[in-house]
């Protein structure tokens, strides 16, 4: 990058927020995606949307690419600058601008941490449901750009279901306002859903208005062990078929159970195939009935153990296995490849079988846990990046898993995004026409291709 150009950037955001030293650039060359690195040309931490507009104008004119980044917890390489361009980190834009209790909305800047918004609205008896695993550090801008999900997806949906209004800086620095605080709005194309999950390729969000709902009054936590995997999968379908929609319906497989037990000693039996963590939330009378149905269904499906937490301390203990799942797996080997293939929930049992078969076929260790209720599984391969052969086999296993997910009517990524990591699988899923339409949209928003290029397709 030319020194004169960097000088212009410094004039906009200030010298201390313009990083160009080798050491800083090196550590902005990664996010949470394993195996992918790409060092940017400069990193900027703007302090206002006006600064972002000026940066975009400047870069648009100079043809320099811009990649938005929140806290860098992306799992598909989406927050890496592909071609030594600029990384724009949103962290300083971290104000919760407003919580509107009459319209039940919150308006935030893109760098607001997801859990900070949770705390703010929950203190007022309100609820913002999306809860990605990284919510203690992930930013709202990143959540919108990736359409983040989380544990509560089954009952409450994902980020897209809550985004009502966006203020977006376009590639040329113009401002686009879409949606707002109204529930009904059919004026023109619905651009919000297009911008949500655009992975930073269509615009830079500077303002986000999300829908809030009343905070559920109560919650009941339950845990069930299943000696046979198939029974656990059938129980999941049966719970939904009984018209109970749990807030949480999480699953741990045998490999994960063993790792959790070795690491955290939470008292899981090693002879079971699957553990389900189930939580129902809502009105106390309703959830009592729902919990009773869940207990009955798990019993019918031959669970070997079932416990309902009687108090918050017990609930905390029951959720421990699920909470420690990733830690327990990640400690086993240096490299952890966490995927998010997603299938219709009726296919969960079949999908788990594919994962197990692929792991066996390619001789790799894959533990699976995840959001059984919405079909979003996290097959997690435990490997060592220095073992090139094993890494190769791991990717071969995942290629089979993605193919199977597509064949079952599922998707290659439920919540992590395509980014760089899943680019080559996307055409298989959406076909040529899908890629053509996406390219057309990209062209309409960003004809010069300066916004997060090289991602998605």
């Amino acid at each position: 990058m030319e020194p004169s150009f960097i000088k212009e950037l410094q004039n906009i955001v200030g010298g201390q927020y313009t990083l160009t030293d080798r050491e800083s650039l090196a550590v902005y060359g990664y996010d949470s995606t394993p195996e992918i690195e790409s060092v940017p040309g400069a990193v900027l931490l703007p302090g206002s949307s006006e600064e972002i507009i000026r940066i975009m104008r400047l870069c648009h004119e100079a043809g320099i690419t811009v990649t938005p980044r929140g806290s860098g917890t992306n799992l598909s390489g989406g927050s890496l600058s592909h071609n030594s361009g600029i990384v724009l980190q949103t962290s300083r834009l971290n104000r919760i601008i407003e919580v509107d209790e009459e319209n039940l909305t919150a308006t935030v800047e893109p760098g607001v941490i997801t859990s900070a918004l949770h705390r703010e609205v929950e203190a007022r008896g309100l609820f913002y449901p999306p809860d990605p695993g990284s919510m203690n550090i992930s930013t709202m801008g990143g959540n919108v750009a990736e359409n983040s999900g989380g544990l509560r997806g089954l009952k409450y949906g994902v980020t897209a279901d809550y985004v009502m209004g966006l203020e977006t800086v376009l590639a040329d620095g113009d401002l686009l306002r879409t949606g707002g605080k109204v529930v009904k709005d059919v004026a023109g194309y619905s651009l919000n859903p297009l911008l949500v999950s655009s992975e930073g390729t269509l615009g830079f969000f500077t303002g986000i208005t999300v829908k809030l709902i009343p905070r559920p009054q109560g919650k009941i936590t339950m845990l069930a062990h299943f000696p046979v995997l198939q029974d656990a999968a059938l129980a999941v379908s049966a719970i939904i078929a009984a018209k109970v929609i749990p807030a949480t319906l999480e699953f741990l497989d045998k490999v994960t159970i063993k790792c959790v037990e070795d690491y955290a000693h939470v008292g899981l039996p090693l002879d079971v195939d699957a553990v389900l963590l189930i939580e129902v939330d809502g009105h106390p009378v309703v959830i009592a009935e729902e919990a009773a149905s869940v207990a009955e269904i798990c019993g019918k499906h031959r669970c070997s153990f079932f416990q309902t937490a009687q108090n918050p301390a017990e609930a905390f203990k029951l959720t421990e296995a699920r909470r420690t799942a990733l830690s327990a797996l990640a400690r086993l080997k240096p490299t952890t490849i966490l995927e998010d293939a997603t299938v219709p929930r009726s296919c969960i049992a079949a999908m788990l079988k594919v994962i197990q078969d692929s792991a066996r076929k390619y001789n790799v260790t894959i533990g699976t846990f995840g959001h059984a209720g919405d079909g979003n599984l996290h097959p997690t391969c435990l490997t060592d990046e220095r073992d090139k052969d094993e890494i190769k086999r791991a990717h071969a296993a995942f290629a089979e898993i993605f193919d199977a997910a597509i064949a079952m009517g599922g998707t290659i990524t439920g919540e992590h995004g395509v980014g760089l990591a899943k680019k080559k699988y996307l055409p298989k899923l959406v076909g040529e026409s899908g890629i053509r339409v996406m390219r057309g949209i990209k062209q309409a928003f960003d004809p010069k291709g300066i916004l997060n290029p090289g991602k998605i397709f």
Partner: protein
Amino acid sequence: MPREPHPHPSPPLEGEGGVKGLYMDYVKLINCMRCGMCLPACPTYRETFLETASPRGRVALVRKLQEGELDQSERLLEYLSLCLDCQACASACPCGVNAGELVAEFTCERKEGVEMGFMEDLILRKLVPHPDRLESSLVPMRIYQRSGLQKLVRKLGILKMFPRPLERMEGLLPELPARPLRQEIQEITPAEGIERGTVGFFLGCVMSLIFSDASRATIKLLSSLGYRVITPRNQVCCGAPNMLGGDMAGLKEAAHTNIDIFGGHEVDFIVTDCGGCGAELKRYGHHLGGYDAAESFSGKVRDISQVLALHADELRARLKPLPLKVTWHDPCHIAHCQGIRKEPRDLLKLVPGIDYRELEAADACCGSAGTYNIERPEMSDRILKRKLDTIQASGAEVLVTGNPGCLLQLKKGLADHLPDVRIMHLTEILVRSMNVQPD
């Protein structure tokens, strides 16, 4: 399967000493999966939002240095030196990486035989590791405080003429006790009533020199619970300052000396009321890997709160009402390094009449961190400010903690900004409750 844009360079499985042999344990570096869970826990990331000021970033810097992608530049070392080594990142890490310790060990290796700044050298190498020297060095300070000279100097602003670190240090020092506890305490304090066991008391340097009342309270609590307390007078510094000063050999020597000294006594536990010492003593087994006596020594080390918590019922029976609003600040060396969080809170709640308030982010560093508050005053002050804000929000009248570094830092911070809030060591407030006279 190659992935674009380019795969990360990584050395082969063999040769875990690393490309340049700069750092000993390559596997520890690649265990970091860069998930970012450490970011919200890190005080310096919270202040700066910079990846270079985050635990994940520091591990990456050391790793890239090891892999030859970066050089050992001034800037890189400057970035690493922003780490407080509070180890909050270790508590947050899902895969067991301890970035704080990694950086500390790396820095220790690098500093070996290297010249240090005047204050760092004076404190870490010349004074603190040697109790006798440290004690005599503070004699002039004691005279200075007691003669009224301190007031005069502060009034005239003479300190502004000295290097900034010296001015900081002068401001941090509270009024010193007449004599260090180490010179006064009897080697054996008998148990009160029926003897239940014997403990060795490890008297930290700063506790002895500055917070001797707290250590007296510790001994009082132990003896009143039926422990015979042995305080060997020839014990030496735990060795933590050696590590900060890049003197691993000095740390090991200190460890051997203390292991031999305490090994000469039959004790059930080795107790300390200094969080920093406790954390270091518990690492002797790690530092002297393979040495059984070190393992056994470390296995006996307990923070005072751990021992007191064993006797909660007896303690409760002796405590009298203290109607105070109280909160607990978790020292990093107790919460993050030793994993102790429950015991101090449970003990405070034993005191009748206490209105216990939980501090928001109670386990966030206060910015003291060894000599960090002297070496890096600006960052230290920013971190301290956050802590003071949470203390104010809690409405507590008394802040209780368990580590002399925190006591020094917070005492000064409270005096400057929240003069109505008192600070006490855990054992001081418990003894005060024991000594309450009935009306």
